[in-house]
């Protein structure tokens, strides 16, 4: 999710996948909602463990696809039947079958580009200076980060919870 403002918090470093999933489940059960899990590779079941809702991107794709379809129809209709209509095939000026390929292509184009745009926006990309919790998170370590603006947050409580769940190291982050 896009985070415009620097927010501090507590990060716990874990050494294996199973502990991280269990820890994420427990952190969610403890009432935290804005925490994040950072892993070196996609972990199956992590979405459920963290309680992450589905991404809104599919709705953007669908809406943009519908807009693209109508845009394709409008473009072909205007250029073939309204402005400077030239009959070269003996067909009616407004011939839907001839327009379908263009409508289809614009549907795909709008849907695809909007999805990428929505994905960039929601992920906060491009961000040139991401804070680094631990450089080994991209390699072999796992982390759970609880931001300080989370529900019922206190530094001591978060630290104790993560330690109890098997974190080998606790890091206080000034910003994330």
């Amino acid at each position, binding site marked *: 999710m896009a985070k415009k403002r620097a927010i501090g918090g507590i990060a716990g470093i874990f050494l294996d996948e199973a502990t991280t999933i269990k820890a994420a489940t427990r952190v969610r059960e403890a009432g935290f909602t804005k925490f994040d899990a950072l892993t070196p590779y996609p972990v199956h079941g992590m979405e459920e463990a963290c309680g992450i809702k589905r991404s809104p991107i599919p709705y953007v794709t669908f809406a943009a696809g519908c807009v693209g379809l109508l845009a394709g129809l409008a473009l072909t209709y205007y250029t073939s039947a309204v402005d400077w209509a030239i009959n070269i*095939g*003996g067909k009616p000026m407004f011939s839907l079958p*001839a327009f379908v390929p263009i409508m289809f292509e614009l549907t795909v184009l709008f849907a695809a580009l909007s999805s990428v745009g929505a994905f960039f926006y929601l992920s906060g990309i491009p961000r040139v200076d991401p804070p680094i919790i631990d450089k080994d998170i991209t390699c072999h370590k796992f982390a759970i980060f609880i931001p300080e603006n989370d529900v019922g947050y206190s530094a001591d409580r978060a630290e104790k919870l993560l330690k109890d769940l098997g974190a080998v190291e606790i890091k206080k982050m000034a910003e994330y």
Partner: protein
Amino acid sequence: MDSSNHSHELKLNKFEAPQQLKTAIFAAMFIGFLGLAYGLFKAPDRLWTSYLVSFFFFACLGLGGMFFISFNHVAGAGWSVSIRRIAESFTSFLPAMFIGSVILILGFKYLYPWADPSQAHRLTGGKALYLAPWFVTLRLVIFGIGCLIFKKIMVGNSIKQDQNGDHALTHKNVGFSVGFIAFFAIFFTLFSIDLLMSLLPSWYSTIYGIYAFAGMIQSTMAVLALMIIWLKNSKWVSGYITVEHQHDVGKYMKGFTIFWAYIAFSQFMLIWYANIPEETEFYLMRSHSGWLGVSVALLVFRFAVPFLALLPRDAKRNDMNLAAVSILVLVMQYVDLYWLVYPNFFDGIPQFGFLEISIFVGFAGVFLKLMTGFMTKNNLVAIKDPRMHEALNHHVTY
């Protein structure tokens, strides 16, 4: 993978068809027999058109089962091994398909202009040779026997593996799958051309085989989805077949819904655009009076409705919704084949009645009889497949 996310209890019992189903199958076969007897004596023309549509419909399901297991073997797919046995059970219809195509030879003279010597002048050159009755029969027999051989080997290997757990059988099946797909690509194209396209020998479309294939695979996925919904939490099996498999089969069905529309439109648009009389014949027959409605219904109910109804993620994970769309797809597969066959015989007036229903129901009875027989005789899941752990941990991410 932490197993706590997928803590299914695995259960696998011997399948036994419920008594009501057995009675229904028997009744269906009896109705089919009545229809056959009535049609043979009273209305042989209608009987054979009805027979052709229903025969092709169920042949497609048997072939679709073979094709599904083949492309999963070739791709080395792990997620689908726990539902592979269901697809294998569809292939038990292939012996009936062979017998059915031999029976169809009796109906050649009612169906095909090329089987009627007085129509011979409509065929010239290579077409006359290609559509010589002996040559068509030869292709039908090669296709039927070839499919039976591949089925015997590939499904046989799979069942053998249930006993001995030999991994080499999985590797062997990859080679046979490649062979089957090559054989199938050529002979299914010829099969659809011989049985359906040659009803109007003066017309041809080079995309016809793919069109028939698109409907075949889409309807197979619909039956597979229905079987998964029925079996996944039944008293015979649980844990092996999950909503994740249902979801992916639903995705296949949606994918091939789009594929069908793509192929159907590609065929239509080129013919419409070029507007050459010898090509437009096919669409002219289907674009006036009664047949126009059927053509539009195909566009709406075979593409638009299933496409939108399968689009959301939850639509594929919801049993009621997926079952409803699957049934719609199967109905439209029948309508599609009907639309390919009937306008050649009934100009402007769609005919539908007892003969169509009874023959279809009879074929459905034979199909279910053979399928449930296969399921009773063998395990419902290929339990010793080396990739089973992948299927059990299959998880569709969001």
